[in-house]
């Protein structure tokens, strides 16, 4: 046979290329964080998200691949965008999506997280999308159910779908992340977006810089002495408290949401001082590359961590991030469903 010749055969479904069945790399029953994602798996999600964007742009944005698949949004913490994004993602793919709000107080009072998860599991949930104010809660949940657990943000720990949509958005803008300087500015200590971002961006070859006041930088970054012992720290990052130095020649600038409680907690004298020292402004961005990409995971406090004119400027991807979020979540639901979760109960 000639070199550019290839064969495909008809399968039970009709026709498909037998040698192209393995282009998706995926080995997860849950999505808890990006720390256990290979580059190929991240690429898989992004490639699929690209296809899902096409579905979203259709006149009737619907492709019922997840018919009969039940997604339960279990949000222990209020959220508009992430919850809506998952609801939409599930519905576009034809899944049955139910949203349950459970605030933490009711959990403390009565039903435990484990009971809640077991109950939803008994109702034949195929996937549970979980948002919780306490780090590690989705890990606990995943040990008590066969349903796929998707972490939609746990405490200060992780927000893997946000990091994936950020990677997708950046790949659209920049092509590749390799060697790109990504600066995250703000409350790093309490940011699950930052933690998952560190995993994802580093895996894709970017250079990650964290910038914030010393009171909002976590302990033990770059403490890598234990790597040899099969326990791994976050990938190494550059830490910089001076925003002007941090932004120098940056390809990507991400402003993180500043929770107003930080002031009451004594970590900041005032929001005014924070804005003075760390607000991402047009002037400060002039140090970054001309073509820099500006991101914000939302919801944003304009005038605090980010200047209003910057957020709506042409370098901003904030709107794209939202649309891409739906596509990435569709891709994840599709992959998890394909992993044999349908009918697993």
């Amino acid at each position: 046979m000639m070199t550019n010749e290839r064969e495909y055969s008809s399968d039970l479904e009709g026709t498909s290329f037998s040698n192209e069945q393995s282009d998706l790399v995926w080995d997860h029953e849950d999505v808890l964080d990006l720390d256990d994602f290979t580059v190929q798996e991240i690429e898989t999600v992004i490639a699929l998200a690209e296809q899902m964007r096409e579905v979203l742009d259709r006149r009737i944005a619907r492709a019922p691949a997840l018919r009969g698949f039940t997604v339960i949004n279990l949000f222990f913490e209020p959220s508009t965008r992430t919850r809506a994004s998952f609801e939409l993602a599930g519905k576009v793919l034809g899944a049955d999506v139910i949203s349950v709000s459970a605030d933490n107080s009711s959990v403390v009072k009565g039903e435990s997280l484990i009971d809640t998860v077991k109950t939803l599991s008994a109702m034949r949930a195929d996937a549970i999308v979980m948002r919780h104010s306490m780090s590690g809660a989705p890990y606990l949940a995943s040990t008590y159910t066969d349903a796929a657990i998707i972490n939609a943000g746990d405490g200060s720990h992780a927000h893997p779908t946000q990091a994936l949509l950020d990677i997708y958005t950046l790949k659209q803008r920049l092509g590749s992340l390799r060697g790109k300087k990504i600066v995250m500015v703000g409350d790093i200590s309490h940011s699950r977006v930052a933690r998952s971002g560190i995993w994802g961006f580093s895996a894709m070859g970017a250079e990650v810089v964290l910038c914030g006041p010393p009171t909002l930088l976590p302990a033990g970054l770059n403490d890598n002495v234990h790597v040899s012992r099969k326990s791994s720290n976050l990938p190494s990052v550059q830490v910089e408290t001076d925003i002007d130095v941090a932004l120098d020649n940056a390809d990507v600038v991400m402003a993180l949401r500043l929770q107003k409680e930080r002031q009451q907690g004594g970590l900041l004298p005032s929001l005014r001082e924070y804005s003075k020292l760390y607000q991402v402004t047009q002037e400060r961005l002039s140090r970054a590359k001309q073509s820099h990409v500006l991101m914000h995971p939302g919801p944003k406090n304009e005038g605090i961590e980010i200047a209003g004119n910057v957020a709506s400027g042409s370098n901003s991807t904030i709107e794209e991030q939202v649309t891409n979020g739906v596509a990435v979540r569709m891709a994840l639901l599709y992959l998890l469903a394909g992993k044999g979760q349908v009918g697993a109960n």
Partner: protein
Amino acid sequence: MTTLAIHNARVIDPKLGLDGVMDIVVVDGRIGRIGPNEAEMVIDAERIDASGLTVTPGFVDLHCHLREPGFEHKETIATGTLAAAKGGFTTVCAMPNTEPPLDSQATAESVLHQIEQSAQIRVLPIGCVTLGRAGTELAPAAELVESGVVAISDDGDAVANTALMQAALSYSSLFALPVVQHAEDPALVANGQIHEGWISTRLGLRGRPSSAEEILVARDIALAEVTGGHLHLAHISTSGSVSLIAAAKARGIHVTAEVTPHHLTLTHEIVAFDGQSSAIRYDTSAKVNPPLREPRDLEILTEALAQGIVDAIATDHAPHSKSDKEIEFDLAAPGISMLETAFGLAMKRVHDGSLNLPTLIKTLTSGPVDSWSLENRTNTPGLGTLSPGSPADIAIIDPDLLWKVDTQEFLSKGKNTPVDGWELKGKVLATIFTGEPVFVDPEMSSRLRLN
């Protein structure tokens, strides 16, 4: 008259300076004779063949939580003392964070009554420093001492108010009563879950910094110096605390300290990693206050124990029910069920060469007894030793026996331990309390000839 003869044991009693193969004869619950071939001459005795095994004084624990009254679903005096006996302990001091807390003569008397009824071994109650453990007013120390309390502590929480701590140390000096401090500054550990370091950052959990402990250790040493009170530092966990204690002791300040088996052997990494896989976990069984620290702290603490800077190993046995631990990490109760693994776990430090066996035994026996003057305080001469005439409290151990921790076999109600399934080297095979076997491992049964 009942007689028990223990044959051919390697007897280690650091206080008496004994370390050699000999026999022990127990008569009417007290140590009779001790020496080579002493048992041969005894007739009509129950006998234990201890050849190849080691015999030491029964272990003494300055710090455990028996949970009764108030939390009987976690532990009772009966189950806790069974667990203690299985761990080689013949004397334990029980912390007062019960419900109600032990802060009055009436409560003390009811607890002592319960001890009388159901304890398998000697239980010495610890009273509260402050009323209701609320940290605002002093509990009646004189009355508590009169009832038989051997120390006072608000353990679980620190006595944070400096003036109150000074008053506690000052007032308790009247009775030479140890004030046992859980040294963690509440403002610095607020909502903290594990040691502040790379693991807390990795898991997104709020940290409890080492400085939180060291600040109170330093403060309380200064208060002990001013007042002349006896400061006992519970479960110290950082290398910085060790330096502060060493310096205080060198200056002659009355300060004593204990360390737990887990703070000697486990690091904060086990919260997140099982040592096999690189996948993270949130292991609530490793959540404990003060938190498990870093490898360097473990080294310094072990060295401090070897050098006598730290006086005692105490278990901080903190049993919890399943539902207290199978829960979000932030909501999980802190503490480890430790009585039954204390010896085996601490033996890691002997097998890795950083402690010798007699030193370990000392820190489990005369070390704790002497640091709180328990012989005088309980009117029990020879407590923590095998000296003739003292109560026959004995542990029979095999320092080299490999065994696997299985919480299903725990006698404690608390199955909460991060070392479940671990293989440990060194096991308690029998425990004798005032001449009576209170625990006998099945491995020992062939060696017993009881009447």
